[in-house]
């Protein structure tokens, strides 16, 4: 149920994001979701890709520091209050979100968000009990 996110350490320098994206492009790896957490000096680029193992290999070969992290992708109804419904469930069950972000594209009437939980297993069971649809990694390629 969990999917794999790659996080990459980037100095806040011109062209670094381009370097990552162009490397992944050359390796024919598709970015499905993306988020950047930034500070004054550095940023953490977090991406979900169709071929995470290949991506990490390519990144490391090119001198990037990259980590794999388990995250949970959740379908959210694409209407006002859609996200609030999910957050309410998480809140009531004391599930902590470290951070979250949206997928690059989604054509249907559902939005897709990824969550980084401090306890992903608990989050998954809470969401499943509440009939929230979780997207598995095998679905990612076909999105």
């Amino acid at each position, binding site marked *: 149920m969990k999917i794999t996110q790659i996080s990459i350490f*980037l100095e806040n320098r011109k062209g670094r994001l381009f370097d990552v994206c162009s490397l992944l492009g050359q390796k024919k790896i598709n970015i499905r979701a993306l988020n950047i957490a930034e500070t004054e000096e550095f940023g953490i680029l977090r991406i979900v890709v169709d071929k995470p193992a290949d991506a990490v290999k390519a990144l490391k070969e090119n001198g990037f520091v990259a980590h794999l992290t388990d995250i949970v992708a959740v379908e959210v109804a694409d209407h006002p209050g859609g996200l609030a419904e999910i957050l309410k469930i998480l809140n009531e069950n004391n599930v902590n979100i470290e951070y979250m972000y949206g997928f690059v594209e989604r054509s249907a009437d559902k939005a897709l968000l990824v969550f980084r939980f401090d306890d992903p297993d608990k989050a998954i069971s809470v969401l499943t009990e509440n009939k929230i649809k979780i997207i598995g990694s095998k679905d990612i390629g076909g999105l």
Partner: protein
Amino acid sequence: MIWNEKMETMAAQDLKNIQSDRLKSIVKYVYDNCPAYTKKIDNHGIKPADINTIDDIKKLPFTIKEDLRDSYPFGLFSQPIKQLKEIHVSSGTTGNPTVVGYTKDDLKLWSEVMARAIACAGGVPGDMIQIAYGYGLFTGGLGFHYGALEMGLTIIPCSSGQTKRQLKIMTDLKPRILACTPSYSLYMAEEAREMGLNPRASSWEIGIFGAEPWSEAMRKEIEATWDMEATDVFGMSEIIGPGVAQECLQKNGMHIFSDVFYPEVIDLQTGKEARPGESGELVITTLTKQGIPLLRYKTRDIVSITYEKCACGRTSPRISKIKGRTDDMIIVRGINVFPSQIEHVLLSIEGTQPHYQLVVDRKTGELDELEVMVEVDEKIFSDEVKKLRALEEKIRDEIESVLGVMVKVRLVEPKTIPRSEGKAKRVVDKRTL
């Protein structure tokens, strides 16, 4: 004025005779009183009786910083600890700090040489002195304090920091002498202008600046900024603290008080005495100290020396400004910093030692800034900003507590710190001193 007319203007041969007598006694004294030195001298294959004149000093073994560290805390002392009246401790380089101690006579000696230094810079009894060197374990503040007391000055023991208050005190109390690090004097000038004060109208006429390297250009800037005479003072805690050597108003080298601190300049290549005017490592023997006398202590400072008589009348030799170091020590805001200290901290936090680099910079009118760049590797990387931030803070706090100087920590990508022949360059000093 010359504080100790007799000792400071003595004819060369007379001075040599005194140095010979004192060397002879101090070698016997450490041999009899300090087991570490007994062993050192025995191992070197000589006896105290072999030392008769000052020229015999070449027969003695050197003492190095590691000897102090290896015998931590009191192993190189020649007196029982009860006889020590004061102890100073400097931050450790790789583990143990350096401990030095003063007997009652040593404190008298310190007062004497510091009085000589202040007089050498132009101070006279009755002057008011603002001491803006740190008081405490650092020897700067108390060394000046004792010298000023000895001389009969009025002391304002400001210690370092609290710049606005320093300036208010200067404006209201009108001290004639300022003692602090040279960069702090320029920092104060910026602050003074911001407060609407005219630095050139200050009461300070004499500055006694030391504890960090500075150049002729910086002297000119300080003198123009404050309209004062800026002089250089030299010292180190292992020898006594400040008061080893001091510039007179000729500003042409620092008079080393060689009747008590005997200097040699050793050529780095040959290990033999360098000729006057040529650069080498300054080696000092404390001829009269009781608590922790040191024989031929290698200071790691590179200087040259001249024995020519100075126009001020003093006959003591003069050493140049510090031209460099034989190790990788840098001085930041008057504090000695070794890259190995940073290495130690990183090792203790991470279990492995990431690549790092120290960048020191000093913007005009500001204090030194030390930035520690640490390459992020797999082990320390996290996908969460707060964890990386916490890591930065932890490294910063640990380094600050070890060094006692403020630092900025910056995480950088792997392989961004330049390596030369596989070895990373640890220190980048961007200061134009």
